[in-house]
C-alpha cells in the first residue's frame, strides 16, 4: 500500500510545536501538523462569568474551538457553528481528566483553540497544543494529553489521515490519551469498521499518541530546559 503523500502506514505527518508564543495568554502553544496551523491559549484561573457557572469544589473548565474564516477552502462564516461547539465539548472532556481542577474552586480556566489553517486532524492537533499551553500556564496536571487519529483508507488501517485520505477514507478515529497511563480521554469514530479494525486502529492511534508525547516533551524542554 502506498499513501497519497508517501507516508508509511504508521507514520505521522510532519509536526512542529512551540510553547509560549502568546504574550497576553497565561499559557500558549503553536502547532503545525501537516498543513494544520493552530494556536492554543490558556486564560485563567480567573473569575467565573456568568457567576452561576462557578463550582465550589473545582474550577470550571471551558474549551472553545474555532476556525478562522480563511482556514478552509470555502470561507467559513465567523462565529461558532455546531461542529465547533461539539469539538469544544469533547476537547473539554479530553483535557479535564489531566488537570487538577480541584485546586481552583470557584474559578474558571478557559482554553481557546484557534485553527488558522485546517487540514484533517484539527481536533487532535488542538488538544495536543492545548496541553502544552496548560503546562505553559503553570496549571498543575496529572500528565500530558497527547492526541492522534487513526483511520481506514482503501481497506487499510493507517495513522494520522491527511485531508485527501479523510475525504476518501472509510473511517476515522480521533484519539487522545493521558500518555503516562495510556488512559483514553478522547475517542470518537465515524465511518464503517469491523470490531477487529477498531482494535487495530486504536492500537495504532495509541502508538501515534506516544510519538506525539515525545514531541510535546521536546517542545517543553526547548522552552524550559531539562
Amino acid at each position, binding site marked *: 500500500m502506498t499513501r497519497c503523500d508517501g507516508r508509511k502506514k504508521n507514520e505521522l505527518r510532519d509536526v512542529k510545536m512551540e510553547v509560549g508564543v502568546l504574550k497576553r495568554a497565561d499559557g500558549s502553544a503553536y502547532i503545525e501538523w501537516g498543513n494544520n496551523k493552530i494556536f492554543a491559549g490558556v486564560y485563567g484561573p480567573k473569575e467565573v462569568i456568568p457567576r452561576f457557572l462557578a463550582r465550589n469544589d473545582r474550577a470550571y473548565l471551558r474549551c472553545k474551538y474555532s476556525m478562522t474564516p480563511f482556514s478552509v477552502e470555502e470561507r467559513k462564516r465567523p462565529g461558532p457553528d455546531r461542529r465547533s461547539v461539539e469539538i469544544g465539548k469533547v476537547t473539554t*472532556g479530553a483535557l479535564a481528566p489531566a488537570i487538577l481542577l480541584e485546586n481552583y474552586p470557584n474559578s474558571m480556566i478557559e482554553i481557546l483553540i484557534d485553527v488558522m489553517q485546517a487540514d484533517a486532524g484539527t481536533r487532535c492537533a488542538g488538544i495536543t497544543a492545548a496541553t502544552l499551553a496548560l503546562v505553559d500556564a503553570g496549571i498543575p496536571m496529572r500528565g500530558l494529553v497527547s492526541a492522534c487519529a487513526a483511520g481506514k483508507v482503501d481497506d487499510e488501517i493507517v495513522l494520522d489521515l491527511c485531508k485527501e485520505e479523510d475525504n476518501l477514507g472509510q473511517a476515522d478515529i480521533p484519539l487522545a490519551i493521558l500518555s503516562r497511563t495510556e488512559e*483514553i480521554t478522547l475517542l470518537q469514530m465515524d465511518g*464503517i469498521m469491523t470490531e477487529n479494525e477498531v482494535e487495530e486502529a*486504536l492500537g495504532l492511534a495509541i502508538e501515534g499518541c506516544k510519538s506525539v508525547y515525545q514531541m510535546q516533551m521536546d517542545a517543553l524542554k526547548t522552552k524550559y530546559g531539562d
Partner: protein
Amino acid sequence: MDAIANIKKENITNLAIEGKRADERDLKEYRELKIIPNYIKKAEGSAYVELGGTKVIVGVKYDIGTPFPDIPNEGVMTTSAELPPMASPEFESGPPGEDAIELARVVDRGIRESKSLDTAKLCIKPGELVRIVFVDIQVLDDDGNLLDASGIGAITALKCAKMVVYDDDGNPTDKIEPLPLRKVPVTCTIAKIGGQLLVDPQKDEEKVMDTRITVTTDEDGNIVAMQKGESGSFKLGEVMEAVRLATVKGQENREKILKAIEEVSD
C-alpha cells in the same frame, strides 16, 4: 459536590463494584424500552420512546430545497434536539446548549455514517431540487441515557416515514413510498462507574459516572460511530469490551424497533 451527592456517589459506586444497580438491573441490562411509532400524525414519521423514566419524541418532516453544489444529486438530512431545563438552575438565553448539540450530532452521525439513508434517492431533480429531511428530537423527560432513547427514536421515526413520489419533471404525484433506508443503526451507551461498565445509565448513575461511551452498530456487526462523552477516561480493554457489548445490545434493541414498527403497520 455536596455531602449528600458524595454519599450517593459512594453508594452507586459500591453497588457497581459488586455488580449491582440501585434499580436491581444487571450491569448489562437495559431498562424497559417502549416504542410507539407514528405517534405524531402531523409528522411524516415519528416515534415516542420510553427508556425507563426517559421520554423522547422524534419527528421527521421534509422540505424541498436546492442541493449543495458539491453533491447535486443528493438530498440532505439534518438533525436537531431540544432539551427541557434541568431541575438545577441554569442560564437559558442564547443558542442551544452544547448538550443538545452533542446529542443531535451523535444521533445524526450514527445514521449518516452507517449509510442507512440513501440520499441519492432523496433527489427530485438533479442539481435543482432535493428533499431535505429534518429529524427533530424533543426530549420530554431526562432520566438518563438520552442518547440511546433519541437514537432509537430517530431511526424508528425515519423507518416509518413516508414520502411523496415526484415525477421526472419535479412535480409531486399521488404516490407515496417509504423513506429509502438501507440499515437500522442503533446506538448503545455504556457508563463506567467504579471500574465497571454499565449499559443504559440511569440519571443518578450519569451524575456519578467516571465517563461514558456511545457506540453505534449496524445489523452486519459493523461499528459506524463512537463517542466518548464527558470527562474521565477508558482503558483500551474497556473500550473494546464496550464495543462488543454495544454490538450485542444494539442487536437486541434493533429487534425491538423492528417489532414495534411491524406491529403498527399491521
